[in-house]
């Protein structure tokens, strides 16, 4: 990897506040790419009081600063559609083998470009219909940046992804030129539509531009519109153009065959040029000079090439059409030299494209990361992913702990995670970052605001799918506590059941029991009735479930079952003390039945419990209401009566202590 990275100046952002030297700035992080910045005292005094006065700051304001925030809204479509392509591709990488996968990778690259183009078109429309000058300008900048991204992407596709067999690359590069430098085509159309085409001021410019892109068909068309098109010179040029060999890989010809044909043709061009066949028309002679690959004429036509890379490809087309991918690098310098004085293009874009022509993909990505401002967050992540799967990226770990692909995907996902609705897309990207993805997700998922049940369930689902147990528990606990504070016991319990947190479940069940004591009935019956195995999470829940079961049995008339269940509830001492009285009172109707249900032993058990309650709860006993004291008395009487009936029925007295 070339290490020629220039140390870049950090990007600078100015807050709209006056710069007083004695006032500092401080900040607080938001989620992802967000900072809250505010002015503060400098240095912060922590040992003295308010001896320093308000230092001329008029408003104590806090600024919410974000990166790329705008892009998310402008390029929402780009984010969503490329997300689909990305996810599908990751699946294919897993399931497909080499040749089939290569085809899919090429397809994905084209899809990404398609989405980019569509997004750009949308921006163009927005910009055209926009009447606000400032906004329009903004759109135009974005459009420009999208254009650059497409330029780089399509070149990378040719060089790294959709590599032509045999490394003969010129045909693809010509397509690239025609796609990104449409000026010649537009001019040609304009000229054609003119009534007197050949006297159109741009007639020859159109021809040269088309020539430089190898568009010989249209050159011939334009030449045929010339008033002298029937002259010998014109006919001769037309013949040469017609005969010019074009390389296509569909044709069953070998590169050597093509090269021979081409040399033959060029020799003819040179011969006829030197014979002066075209001397009558200066421009026509220039056209033939291009065909001959004449060095000087390319320098003269520099402006029609606009950039060094256009120049490079145009020249290669007429000088060395079978140039191999790997040899491109040797031709860059001379074309750049032609443009050096001009300083026509931004240095940064030049560097990126040069790195691509030099086959240095790491440099392309690095430069793109630092050079492009807006769409780069989207661009480099997807391109790097694609190239990684094409085996063009070094898969080895970087010092920061993962590889280039993951580094960039994490960056992109981070940008998405800070967006209020695109965070779900971010989650999918993190899923495909094998090293840090899940810990990033752990960090972020807990910070997604749980505005409502639906969103909480969504977050919970994400956690469950990825086995983020701790985070899932945290979500449930937060939601449960929220419900509990709002006195929504049923919802609270169902959230807590999901988190399986015994301590908080106990809190809720105790509230249920208190509610029962106060109102004599349970709310949320279906929840309690369907506890199932979760009943076993904690004793208090077991008690709640069993206690409810007792009531169901009793109501059904299963008195035997009900009484033995009640008895086991009493003797297990699972219930909180405050509930004992209620529990004991439930025995009262069972004691007063015509038939004796509770035997001696069972009656003793209940008596023990009553004793215990009255003994160690003297204070609370005192606090019992009149009615409760009365109830206790009643119970005692009933117990005694039942005991005597049981003894008689049992026919004997067994004393067991």
């Amino acid at each position, binding site marked *: 990897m070339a290490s020629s990275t220039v140390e870049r100046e*950090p*990007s*600078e*952002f100015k*807050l*709209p506040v*006056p*710069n007083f030297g004695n006032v*500092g*700035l*401080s*900040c*607080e*992080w*938001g*989620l*992802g790419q*967000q*900072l*809250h*910045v*505010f*002015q503060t005292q*400098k*240095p*912060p005094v*922590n*040992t003295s*009081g*308010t001896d*320093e006065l*308000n230092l001329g700051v008029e*408003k*104590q*304001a*806090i*600024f*919410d600063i*974000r*990166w790329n*925030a*705008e*892009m998310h809204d402008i390029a929402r479509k780009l984010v969503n559609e490329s997300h689909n392509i990305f996810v599908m591709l990751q699946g294919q990488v897993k399931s497909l083998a080499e040749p089939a996968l290569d085809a899919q990778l090429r397809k994905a690259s084209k899809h990404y470009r398609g989405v980019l183009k569509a997004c750009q078109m949308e921006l163009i429309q927005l910009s055209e219909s926009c009447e606000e000058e400032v906004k329009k300008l*903004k759109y135009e900048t974005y459009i420009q940046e999208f254009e650059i991204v497409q330029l780089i992407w399509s070149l990378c596709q040719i060089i790294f992804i959709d590599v032509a067999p045999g490394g003969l690359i010129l045909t693809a590069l010509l397509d690239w030129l025609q796609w990104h430098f449409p000026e010649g085509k537009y001019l040609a159309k304009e000229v054609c539509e003119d009534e007197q085409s050949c006297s159109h001021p741009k007639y020859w410019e159109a021809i040269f531009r088309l020539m430089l892109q190898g568009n010989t068909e249209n050159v011939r068309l334009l030449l045929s519109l010339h008033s002298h098109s029937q002259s010998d010179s014109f006919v001769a040029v037309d013949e040469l153009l017609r005969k010019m060999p074009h390389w296509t890989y569909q044709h069953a010809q070998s590169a050597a065959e093509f090269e021979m044909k081409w040399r033959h043709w060029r020799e003819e061009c040179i011969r006829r040029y030197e014979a002066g066949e075209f001397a009558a028309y200066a421009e026509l002679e220039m056209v033939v000079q291009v065909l001959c690959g004449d060095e000087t004429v390319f320098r003269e036509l520099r402006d029609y090439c606009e950039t060094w890379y256009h120049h490079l490809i145009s020249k290669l087309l007429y000088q060395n059409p079978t140039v191999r991918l790997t040899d491109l690098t040797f031709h860059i310098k001379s074309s750049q030299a032609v443009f050096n004085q001009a300083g026509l293009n931004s240095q940064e874009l030049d560097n990126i494209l040069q790195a691509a022509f030099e086959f240095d993909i790491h440099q392309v990505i690095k430069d793109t990361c630092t050079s492009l*401002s*807006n769409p780069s967050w989207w661009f480099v992540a997807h391109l790097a992913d694609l190239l990684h799967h094409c085996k063009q990226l070094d898969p080895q770990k*970087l*010092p*920061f702990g993962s590889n*280039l692909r993951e*580094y960039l995907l*994490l960056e992109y996902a*981070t940008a998405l995670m800070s967006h209020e609705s695109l965070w779900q897309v971010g989650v999918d990207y993190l899923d495909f970052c094998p090293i840090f993805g899940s*810990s*990033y997700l752990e*960090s972020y998922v807990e910070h*997604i*605001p749980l505005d409502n049940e639906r969103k909480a369930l969504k977050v919970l689902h994400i956690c469950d799918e990825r086995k983020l147990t701790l985070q899932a528990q945290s979500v449930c*606990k937060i939601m449960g*506590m929220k419900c509990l504070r709002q006195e929504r016991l049923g919802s609270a319990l169902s959230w807590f059941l999901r988190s399986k947190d015994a301590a908080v479940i106990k809190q809720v069940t105790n509230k249920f029991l208190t509610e029962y004591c106060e109102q004599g009935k349970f709310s949320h019956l279906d929840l309690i009735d369907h506890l199932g195995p979760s009943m076993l999470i904690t004793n208090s829940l077991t008690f709640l479930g069993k206690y409810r079961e007792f009531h169901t049995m009793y109501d059904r008339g299963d008195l035997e079952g009900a009484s033995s269940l009640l008895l086991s509830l009493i003797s297990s001492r699972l219930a909180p003390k405050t509930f004992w009285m209620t529990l004991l009172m439930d025995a009262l109707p069972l004691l007063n039945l015509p038939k004796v249900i509770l035997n001696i032993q069972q009656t003793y058990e209940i008596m023990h419990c009553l004793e215990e309650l009255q003994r160690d709860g003297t204070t609370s006993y005192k606090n019992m209401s009149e009615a409760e004291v009365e109830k206790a008395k009643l119970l005692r009487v009933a117990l005694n009566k039942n005991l005597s009936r049981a003894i008689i029925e049992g026919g004997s007295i067994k004393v067991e202590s």
Partner: protein
Amino acid sequence: MVSVINSVDTAHEDMIHDAQLDYYGTKLATCSSDRSIKLFDVSSGQQTLITHLWGHEGPVWQLAWAHPMFGNMLASCGYDRKVIIWKETNGTWAKLYEYAQHDSSVNSVSFAPHEYGLMLACGSSDGSISIISSTGDGSWDPKKITNAHTMGCNAVSWAPATAPNALFDQQSGQQQMAKRFVSGGCDFLVKIWVEDNGQWIEEQKLEGHSDWVRDVAWAPSIGLAKSILASCSQDCRVIIWSNDGVSGEWDRKTLNKFDDVVWHVSWSTTGNILAVSGGDNKVTLWKESLEGQWVCISEVNKGQGQIGDRPASG
């Protein structure tokens, strides 16, 4: 590209000392020399004042939010030597607990990871650090580390309750989480404290600064068995301390030597970017590059930019 999305005029009558976003970034708390604390709702682009809290008798230095599991709860500390815990009940904010056991200004408060329950650490100019915890039944149990930093403690920050700590305990075969936090003080030291059988003991003393340590920040754990923390000081340096979790040794790396004192460091959510602010009147953002070097990627400065303007680059 960086842009200002919003600006909240807090209407504090004096300098703001701290601003803290709650766990979800939807509520912003600010505190000021005007002795008060303000809470704003900053969700979905709006900024509405929720409440204005009075309770301190001097400048309020720092704030900390508790985990949402415990409801809406905020801690504040100030020059009046007090730490106050505020809580919202049915939409009303009120003082829940006041701790006044320090002999001098309390400079820093920080809530522990929620896994430990309600627990917070506070560092004071009296040189001590208090760790206050609650079982949730309304009672609070303070523990004090006296003479933690001679001349005063300026900052405290908790270690995450995840993997790196657990690794330290693997020798004992236990996966329990050791509670740890870091502090920085006027004795030029950065110290790491660990709880052992209910007692707080000094585990490490990190020497590297040559003047008061102003702030410390333990980085969130991002799946590496590595602990990372940042410290900044009057000596104009920011130091990144890292511990591979195996040897127990802390490795020191100076992030940068600034032109002026540095008094605030804080990590982004995933700990990959460090924000630094100090006497140079800027906030600079530092990120580990592909080559593993810390580089400044962005800086926020003061100037005449307008809200909503397109800045030169981003």
